[in-house]
């Protein structure tokens, strides 16, 4: 694989860019692989990349029913942060942030990880209590997160309305300076290119339609729209479609899939310096490198696989955005879209072996898994390679729903993303 660099760009500029090669191949399918990953989203591709890079397992296929990165990876608001409350979450997400910090260099692909800071607004006394609980726990977990007064919050994000007369006045904010955003597509492409360069087969337009199991119930391979492909280990990383795929192996999941919508405004000159989230009024906003305001809405209330949702959900989100940022009222919505998010009862993911031998699952990231992409792929690769969890995903089992040992950030904080 030819390396990307400023010099390479300059060289190619001299010769009409004739020298750029394919970032990944469309390889001939083999009849079997050591490991099959179902789903070429960020998590699936990262898993394949780390299998190859960290565990030397390169006879890997990533099967994707559509185009790689076209799932939630390609439709999320790209907020990255790790200031979670529980030790399990802090461990996992902070692991991811550390990987994010070197990811462009590691992949030789600029994923534009922008540590512009993620600020979470507290609008009432309860929010303040909850956020301070996070700040304290984060400090002792070595995760950066600081408390800001309303004035400090305004200084960090000038468009913010901190007037006392607001319906929900700003009572302060928790700021994670290392949080930020990344270019979502580049993440998928960067992992795909880097994985392909290490020999991983990325097979698009190849839908998995069945999971074949052997005499003692173990996985032997998958049926796809392009025929049967054998593998002793199969990792399901299908996000919103996980229940559907796992059903193929007769495994029911503690998951529900909801539409989650987002929108972008028309592009404008830089006017918004960081990421702001407000759970009380339900708004998430940042400005992309291209200039659009990227805004996340809430989930629609019903389960769906349609990748669309209702206008009223978008309206509620914009109500909130214009409430905290009244100057944006004349801005315009350019495009809105939806993804399908798979939500577990405790809103934390499952990254684990399943009751079926050889079948692994990485799912349940709900509305907030983009931020975990490198960490998730890294620990899942470890789990598949060793048939045992990495220390950072030990708690993320399915059994926790039987034992009751949940990792319920939402219950503890009513915070998503």
């Amino acid at each position: 694989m030819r390396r990307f660099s400023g010099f390479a760009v300059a060289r190619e500029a001299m010769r009409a860019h004739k020298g750029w090669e394919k970032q990944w191949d469309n390889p001939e399918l083999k009849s079997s692989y050591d490991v099959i990953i179902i789903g070429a989203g960020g998590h699936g591709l990262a898993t394949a990349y780390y299998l190859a890079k960290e565990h030397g397992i390169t006879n890997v296929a990533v099967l994707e029913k559509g185009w790689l990165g076209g799932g939630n990876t390609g439709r999320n608001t790209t907020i990255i942060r790790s200031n979670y409350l529980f030790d399990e979450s802090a461990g996992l997400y902070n692991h991811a942030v550390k990987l994010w910090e070197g990811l462009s260099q590691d992949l030789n692909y600029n994923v534009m990880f922008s540590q512009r800071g993620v600020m979470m607004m507290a609008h009432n006394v309860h929010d303040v209590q909850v956020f301070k609980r996070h700040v304290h726990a984060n400090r002792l977990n070595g995760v950066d997160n600081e408390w800001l007064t309303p004035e400090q919050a305004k200084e960090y994000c000038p468009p913010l309305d901190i007037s006392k007369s607001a319906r929900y006045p700003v009572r302060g904010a928790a700021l994670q300076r290392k949080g930020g955003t990344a270019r979502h597509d580049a993440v998928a492409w960067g992992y795909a290119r880097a994985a392909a360069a290490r020999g991983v087969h990325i097979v698009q337009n190849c839908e998995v339609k069945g999971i074949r199991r052997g005499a003692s119930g173990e996985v032997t391979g998958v049926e796809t729209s392009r025929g049967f492909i054998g593998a002793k280990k199969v990792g399901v990383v299908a996000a919103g479609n996980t229940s559907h795929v796992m059903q193929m192996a007769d495994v029911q999941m503690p998951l529900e899939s909801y539409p989650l919508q987002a929108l972008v405004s028309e592009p404008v000159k830089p006017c918004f310096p960081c990421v702001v989230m407000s759970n009380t009024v339900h708004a998430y906003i940042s400005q992309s490198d291209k200039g659009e305001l990227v805004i996340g809405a809430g989930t629609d209330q019903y389960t769906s696989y349609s990748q669309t949702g209702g206008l009223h959900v978008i309206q509620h989100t914009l109500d909130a955005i214009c409430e905290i940022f009244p100057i944006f009222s004349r801005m315009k919505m350019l495009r809105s879209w939806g993804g399908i998010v798979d939500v577990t009862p405790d809103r934390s993911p499952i990254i684990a072996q399943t009751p079926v031998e050889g079948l692994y699952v990485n799912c349940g990231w709900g509305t907030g898994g983009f931020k975990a992409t490198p960490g998730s792929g890294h620990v899942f690769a470890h789990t598949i390679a060793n048939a045992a969890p990495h220390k950072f995903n030990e708690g993320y089992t399915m059994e926790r729903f039987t034992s009751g040992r949940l990792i319920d950030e939402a219950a503890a904080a009513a915070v998503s993303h």
Partner: protein
Amino acid sequence: MLLIHCPYCAEERPETEFAHAGEAHIERSTQMGELTDEGFANFFFYRDNTKGITYERWRHIHGCGRFFNAARDTVSDKFLVTYKAGEPKPDLSEIDNQTKAGAKS
């Protein structure tokens, strides 16, 4: 915004009058205390989450207040039928064909 037929109001009403209430036909055991851990997990946490026709509960919370059930296609978000709480799963074979016939080409 979906349009949902409330079987009690006998009328289609806008989604914002309703609250979705999860998968339908999951019965709470009359011997709740006796369930195994797995039995409880199945009852409370595990869901079919069907891609296709799902049976789900809704409450006409800002209308007549009644809980009722619906069969809906989660791929197209189309309702096939709604029916009152306590009624058995309806036979969809006919309804299905009708709706299909409704889509012209």
